[in-house]
């Protein structure tokens, strides 16, 4: 059965229809890309899954559990992690603290034990530090900046820290909202490599929103194409590349569209 299932999602902002009956299902362990022109409603889907937005109609099911009416902080507990299109890090905290905060739902000690820094709370913090260092910071190659305040870091590194923070949530599914936006070629390749590592080594399902068609076509297993809040195509990359609706949606069917889709 699909790990994440979205059924007949409708979302309206006043008179504007942002999502119009979106249904999609993501299988466990795959890389599922959502693409579409600007304003198509890609981020809206993620926001509905994370419970930022309340869809007017439709349901979201994660591992057989309906989460449409969950509070946002409870969704995190299920193992749904996400990154944001515009970086939403805690700017005043260090990289290390940002990542540690990702593990918030996995920590048990209360404020009193924490304030005394005694016994269980201390051990828990040490264990967390070890986990963060050895499984996340090493993987994402951000050792050199671990003590830096996030607000002082360049954009590309901030994106990487945001991925690290999402990883610290020990997610089952990772929703990435334009992880390569604004990056140069090298940074994009690094990020693509990290995403593949996370997917293959940890078996984390990836839902990816991205405008860099080269990356999307290379790494995704399935692609979902959205335009004006409606699904226009869905399938493996090869199929999407040749899909007439997709080409029309992107550049009105001109020759330039073919080059944009990597043909």
């Amino acid at each position, binding site marked *: 059965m699909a790990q994440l299932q979205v059924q007949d999602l409708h979302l309206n902002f006043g008179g504007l229809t942002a999502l119009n009956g979106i249904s999609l299902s993501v299988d466990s362990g795959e890389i599922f890309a959502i693409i579409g022109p600007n304003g198509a409603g890609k981020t809206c889907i993620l926001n509905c899954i994370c419970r930022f937005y309340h869809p007017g109609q439709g349901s979201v099911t994660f591992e057989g559990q309906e989460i449409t009416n969950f509070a946002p902080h409870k969704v995190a507990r299920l193992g749904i992690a996400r990154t944001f299109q515009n970086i939403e890090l805690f700017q005043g905290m260090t990289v290390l603290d940002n990542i540690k*905060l990702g593990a918030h739902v996995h920590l048990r000690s209360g404020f009193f034990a*924490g*304030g005394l820094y005694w016994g269980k709370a201390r051990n828990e913090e*040490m264990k967390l*530090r070890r986990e963060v260092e050895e499984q996340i910071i090493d993987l994402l190659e951000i050792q050199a900046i671990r003590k830096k305040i996030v607000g002082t870091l360049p954009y590309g590194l901030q994106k990487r820290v945001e991925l690290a923070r999402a990883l610290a*949530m020990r997610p089952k599914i990772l929703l990435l909202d334009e992880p390569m936006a604004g990056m140069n070629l090298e940074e994009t390749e690094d990020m693509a490599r990290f995403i593949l590592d996370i997917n293959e080594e940890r078996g984390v399902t990836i839902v990816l929103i991205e405008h860099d068609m080269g990356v999307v076509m290379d790494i995704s297993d399935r692609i979902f194409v959205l335009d004006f809040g409606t699904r226009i195509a869905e399938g493996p990359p090869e199929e999407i590349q040749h899909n007439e609706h997709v080409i029309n949606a992107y550049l009105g069917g001109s020759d330039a569209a073919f080059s944009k889709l990597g043909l």
Partner: protein
Amino acid sequence: MPTGLFYTKYQDDEKIFHTLWVKIWMWALLIFLFVCFPFVAYPLSGFFGFSLQHMANMIGIFIIGAHGLNLLTGFTGQISLGHGAFMGVGAYTSAILFMKGGWPFWLSLPAAGLVTAGVGMIFGVPSLRLRGLYLAIATMAAQFIIGYAMRNWTSLTGGSAGLNVDRPSIFGFALDTDLRYYYLILILVIFSTLFLKNLLRTKTGRAMVAIRDRYLSAEIMGVNLFKYRLLAFGISSFYVGVSGGLFAHYNLVVSDEHFTMWLSIQYLAMVIIGGLGHVLGGIFGTIFMVLLPELLRIPTEILSNIYPNIFAIFGTLRELVFGLVIILFLIFEPDGLAARWHTIRAYWKLWPFSY
């Protein structure tokens, strides 16, 4: 001699005091505060013209409260203009339990903290919806409601005449002099500072700072906003309640005049001048705010001795300079004294070879 810090264990990296020298300085400070200060304080008091011991006690009491407000405003990003009144709740609670209820001091003081925490959490409920200026106004309501209760609930609080409070004793040890009370305050200041520092490097504190920096993504990370905002109000009010309890038994009288809006604003000034979001901020800010008016008294007294006819002008001069200093501080060091302290330390770290 290593030329940097090279840790081989995560435990070492997570310590509060990293190097040997820092530890030596901390021990030196502790020894000074516990052993030397009482000896120094008395002779110096004559020099300054005010009791240094008394000042130290007041600073200690207000440091605990400032830590509380710093946790709420500096670290969780929730402003409060009700902390003066919350301090009053703590003072009255401890005073009433001690004088009327006959509770021992070691019970009435924590009880003051707990009751204040409860009251603070009630007034913290709007924080889920309100932020910034709106929250400031909502907490200001707490100031007025509690102030009204203190004045008019005569049977409990003694009305505007206030309550007389005795100096307490702890486990048979009478805290009847300023010096003895000083030790109690000092121990509580150290404990509250360490508790705050530890809180901030574990789960709860991180969640609070995350709420301050970006509450929406904190929520996505699984932080229950309502719970942690309320918790911040609770812990913060606990601190300020304990500080109020200490104040009551030190001042020997509590009345509503001590806990007005002015005190709330003073508390805010303390954490802003000291440095919002720095543990040291509460300490520096309080020392500054308590000592400055007293130190400004010295030149004004000298001047008014020379020109006795215009004494009144110099009296207001003190207030004027006080306000001016605060304004200048906010312009030139908006991050507070704690940030300046970090700059100075960073400068001396590599001195004289700073490159």
